[in-house]
């Protein structure tokens, strides 16, 4: 149900009633529309100009980033900034670490999340609902409030300053279980019933029926998890000390603070490199992003 409703959200803007216009009403309607469009244009500009400025500044020589009046588009594109960020910083290492983390976390989250969600959605046993409440309840508990005991535990386990720490931190979130359970509950019970009569075990039903059916929900969860892990800053900040372990976000942040005289053109080149993969992933999977987020909010 939830997913269906959000389908309309994504695709349903086109189908509408014919607009009835009646004399003086229509003039007001046109003005209102014009105001609406004007508001949209202003809002869109406000949202996109910072990105445009970032990309353009990555192609400027350092001393031209701040000028009055603003130069939106540089006269000569300084591609050298991109060469410099590559040679002057560990950006190759950062990208590799971030990719390793994002992929590992996403796979683990998909696997354990959808597996647990099936247990919550389709197997009835005592204590199930209380347990699920504990899961959902932790969504209201900020990570910042238990980061210290968590850090001490992981450091006792000698896992701090390893990529494992971040994988463990991110991979078992309640959100994935919640999202997948929401979806599984929309699948008609008769499908599973029929499979059960055919002798399929619960694991078989999860594997052969639920997983293939939930590809859109899995895609939502995968995209949200990947982006989240790619963008995570606090986890790496606390856990990763060695330069060889830095992620994109931590590296860029330290790139700024470690230099007395930051070459802003080079910095912007680095920022652009960190944003572009996410932008592409988002544009390709936009539908699933919006669905995933709308679904998580549907329960209300």
């Amino acid at each position, binding site marked *: 149900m939830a997913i269906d*409703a959000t389908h309309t*959200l994504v695709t349903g803007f086109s189908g509408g009633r014919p607009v009835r216009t009646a004399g003086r009403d229509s003039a007001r309607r046109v003005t209102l529309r014009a105001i609406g*469009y004007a*508001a949209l244009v202003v*809002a*869109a500009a406000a*949202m*996109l100009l*910072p*990105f445009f*400025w970032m990309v353009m500044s990555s192609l400027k020589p350092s001393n031209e*980033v*701040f*000028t*009055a*009046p*603003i130069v939106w588009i540089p006269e000569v594109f300084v591609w050298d900034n991109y060469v410099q960020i590559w040679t002057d910083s560990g950006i190759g290492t950062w990208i590799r670490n971030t990719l390793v983390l994002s992929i590992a976390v996403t796979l683990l989250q998909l696997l*354990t999340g959808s*597996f*647990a969600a099936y*247990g919550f959605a389709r*197997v009835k*046993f005592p204590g199930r609902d209380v*347990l699920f409440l*504990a*899961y959902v309840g*932790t969504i*209201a508990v*900020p990570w910042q*409030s*238990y*980061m*210290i*005991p968590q850090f*001490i*535990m992981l450091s006792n386990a000698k896992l701090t300053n390893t990529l494992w720490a971040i994988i463990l*931190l991110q991979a*078992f979130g309640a959100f994935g279980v919640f999202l997948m359970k929401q979806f599984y509950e929309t699948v008609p019970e008769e499908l599973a019933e029929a499979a059960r009569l055919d002798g399929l075990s*619960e694991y078989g039903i*999860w594997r052969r029926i639920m997983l293939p059916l939930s590809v859109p929900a899995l895609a939502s969860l995968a995209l949200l998890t990947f*982006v989240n892990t790619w*963008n995570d*800053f*606090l986890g790496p900040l*606390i856990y990763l000390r060695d330069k060889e372990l830095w992620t994109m*976000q931590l590296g*860029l942040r330290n790139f700024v603070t470690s230099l007395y005289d930051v070459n*802003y053109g080079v910095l*912007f080149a680095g*920022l652009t490199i*960190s*944003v572009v993969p*996410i932008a592409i992933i988002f*544009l390709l999977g*936009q539908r699933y992003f*919006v669905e995933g*987020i*709308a679904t998580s*909010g549907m329960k*209300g």
Partner: protein
Amino acid sequence: MTTTSAPAPSARRRRSKLALRNTLIGWSFILPNFLGFATLTLVPVIVLFYMSLTNWNIFGNAQFVGLQNFIQLSKDGSFRVAFLNTLYYSVMHIPLTIIVSLGLALLLNNKLRGLAFFRTAAFFPYITSIVAIALVWNLLLSPEYGPVNEILRFLGLQNPPGWLTSADWAMPGVVLVSTWRDMGYYMVLFLAGLQTVPRELHEAARVDGANAIERFVNVTLPCLRPTMFFVTVMLTINSFKIFDLILVMTQGGPGQSTLVISQFIYRMGFEQNKFGYASAAAVVLFFLCILVTIGQFLWDKKRSS
């Protein structure tokens, strides 16, 4: 299976056997995730409460000190500043984000052209990393040469604010950026909610002569209640725990003007290694979030009945 051959008296035993089987199967599904979830979330939360009652520090000494940390916390000027700053941020950020994102959602719900493009644009800040956003806005807001103030001067403002360099304007600056980042996300939630408002209700109200504002107040808002509830809860929790944006943008400065609770916890815990004391502050943050969420739940329940 075996059930067909079993005689009637054992029906109860059969049922309890089935229940046991279901319990085992259920737990086997949940266990892989639960092991991680329990060790990394549930246990730390429980340990947190114990730690907050000790003077645990870097040397591993942990003596039980009762409520000592909380008493000290209540006298700590920095903590009071952090607490008030967190509330100040929330009081600005929550209503502003609701107004802007609901406004955008209402606009988008009007079948204007270019919606798909706009929805993409609005969502873009939300999926971009905090570090990139914070660094870019830091420079955009720089008082002398930043584009924002340049635009303000162009619009005729003689003395534009010093933003992150000024104690008075730093927090509004952070709120500006976080609202800019969050509005696309909440707009999507509101849009999904608006889809559930029945068209017939609007038509009926129109026939009864209700104008646009009356229709919004009497039809749209009541239908949006579940969405509004979810949005307010999420926004409140996210505002109370605000940290990474501030850490990269201002590091709590200038002075203590943007120091928030999460950063206080971080400073005490990871910079000064006073784990017990930091845990006490974390307990305060924990209860702040939980109590406000429960309060909102009860209020929502009362209104819906």
